[in-house]
């Protein structure tokens, strides 16, 4: 039976043309689009992956990017691994997604006992008799952190990921996109697809690369459209290499964009500055181009550029063709009965604008990385002298927020010295098991914590 040909990444890229000018720049290599024709980053072994559920696990972002271009439409399912995925989570993800192959550049551990087929990939292209016949509407699986520590697996497709929003900037030449984000996460992936499907070029970031060297590389490649979290941008303007880039268009997303950061970055670069709202589940919601924090209240309750916005119980809900389809391995759906995704982001109406005020579940956003208070509380509560702990956000002008903890001890500390020793002890415990951004900046010992009527510790969003 002949399957119908699907729209795939490669045939869309191919139809946009302009191959002689376009490029994809990684930390180690620059790939010209013309080099992609009749070549393979998988040493020509893509046919072995046809119809499979494939995990893409690389250190280098460019290697992941090339594998995605080659495999969309060929494989049934593509699982994108962020760089910091833990071995036990990789095993869990492989089982949940019924993965039967891994594509790896071997710079990261990719041992998963249940997956037999490992196909090498990299940034070196080899000539291949590539038949890019796309017969699958490939599922793109993105991982996002869950409350329990195990990642949530969100199902997207090229159609939901590629639904773009126009930027207001018109340029004499085609844009060169660039993002501080890792392109295996939603924020980076949406920019990557935007550039690839829109006929543009892109500079990818690289795990472990210094801000200065990334800015230099981006500048040398002539970036025009650059995105990152407000924290990425605050870090950029603190870098001696800040002036190596001069993007006419800057976009912030992934954290609440406050007015002072918007103003500072606009003043520094003299660029058009926008901030976007997006989440892995809801996709890109909207882009705010007027340079002001928050968004116009008039957008709520009606269709605004292909998205329906609703505010219910204080949280923002979105319905659009960019919404993810579902979760893997979770009974609850992504959308409610009316087809809206509850983002869990709380908004407050002030005048004629809505402003973001934090997460309903108390999730703390440290420079774009999510921290669930429960996972830090659980660690603190392992300390024998701790009765209960409450973790909340502390504002930071550098990373947006930091983690701070209040702790009730089982017995009153004898002296100030005892108290200080316990604080140090708890911090050490946290440092031993948590990544640095989840370690509290302070441990405050208190005599009691507010308990809500449900019997749970009262959490209010910051």
């Amino acid at each position, binding site marked *: 039976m002949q399957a119908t040909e699907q729209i795939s990444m490669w045939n869309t890229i191919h139809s946009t043309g302009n191959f002689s000018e376009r490029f994809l720049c990684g930390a180690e290599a620059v790939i010209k689009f013309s080099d992609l024709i009749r070549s393979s980053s998988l040493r020509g072994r893509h046919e072995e992956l046809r119809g499979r559920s494939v995990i893409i696990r690389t250190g280098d972002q460019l290697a992941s990017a090339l594998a995605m271009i080659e495999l969309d439409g060929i494989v049934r399912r593509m699982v994108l691994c962020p760089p910091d995925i833990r071995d036990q989570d990789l095993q869990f993800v492989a089982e949940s997604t019924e993965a039967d192959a891994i594509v790896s550049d071997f710079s990261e551990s990719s041992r998963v006992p249940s997956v037999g087929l490992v196909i090498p990939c990299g940034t070196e292209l080899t000539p291949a008799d590539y038949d890019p016949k796309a017969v699958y509407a490939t599922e793109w699986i993105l991982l996002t952190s869950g409350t329990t520590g195990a990642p949530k697996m969100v199902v997207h497709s090229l159609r939901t990921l590629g639904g773009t929003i126009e930027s207001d900037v018109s340029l004499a030449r085609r844009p060169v996109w660039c993002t501080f984000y890792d392109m295996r996460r939603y924020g980076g992936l949406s920019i990557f697809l935007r550039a690839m499907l829109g006929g543009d070029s892109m500079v990818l970031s690289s795990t472990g690369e210094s801000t200065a060297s990334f800015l230099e590389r981006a500048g040398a490649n002539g970036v025009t459209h650059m995105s990152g979290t407000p924290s990425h941008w605050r870090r950029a303007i603190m870098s001696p290499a800040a002036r190596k880039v001069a993007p006419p268009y800057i976009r912030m997303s992934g954290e609440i964009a406050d007015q002072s950061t918007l103003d500072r970055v606009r003043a520094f670069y003299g660029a058009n500055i926008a901030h976007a709202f997006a989440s892995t589940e809801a996709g890109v919601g909207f882009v705010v181009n007027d340079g002001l924090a928050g968004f116009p209240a008039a957008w709520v309750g009606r269709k605004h550029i292909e998205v329906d916005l609703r505010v219910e119980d204080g949280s923002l809900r979105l319905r659009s063709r960019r919404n993810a389809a579902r979760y893997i391995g979770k009974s609850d759906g992504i959308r409610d009965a009316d087809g809206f995704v509850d983002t869990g982001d709380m908004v407050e109406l002030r005048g004629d604008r809505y402003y973001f005020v934090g997460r309903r579940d108390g999730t703390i956003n440290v420079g774009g990385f999510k921290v669930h208070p429960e996972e830090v509380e659980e660690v603190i509560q392992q300390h024998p002298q701790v009765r209960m702990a409450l973790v909340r956000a502390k504002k930071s002008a*550098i990373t947006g927020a930091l983690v701070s903890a209040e702790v009730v001890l089982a017995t009153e500390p004898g002296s100030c010295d005892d108290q200080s020793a316990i604080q140090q002890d708890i911090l050490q415990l946290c440092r031993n098991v948590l990544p*640095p951004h989840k370690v509290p900046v302070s441990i405050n010992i208190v005599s009691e914590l507010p308990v809500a009527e449900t019997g749970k510790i009262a959490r209010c969003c910051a």
Partner: protein
Amino acid sequence: MSVRSIVMNEFDQVATRQNMHLAPLTDDLALLDSGLDSLCIAVVVSRLEDELGVDPFSANVEGAQFPVTVGDFIHLYEGAVSPKV
């Protein structure tokens, strides 16, 4: 203790805690070349707020620039603290 030595001391302490190697601190050294990443710098700022009672970063001063060098960073605190002493 001077503001300068309080700031320097926090750099040392945070670097030690995070097992990061701190470069010899001079006024011309770029903050992000000091060996501390932006998370560490955020921690330093938070601890200095507890110690000195000011956070010059959050103060929304018209035209205020983010510091690039260690010297800029120290001057920012000296400027924020001294008028009150």
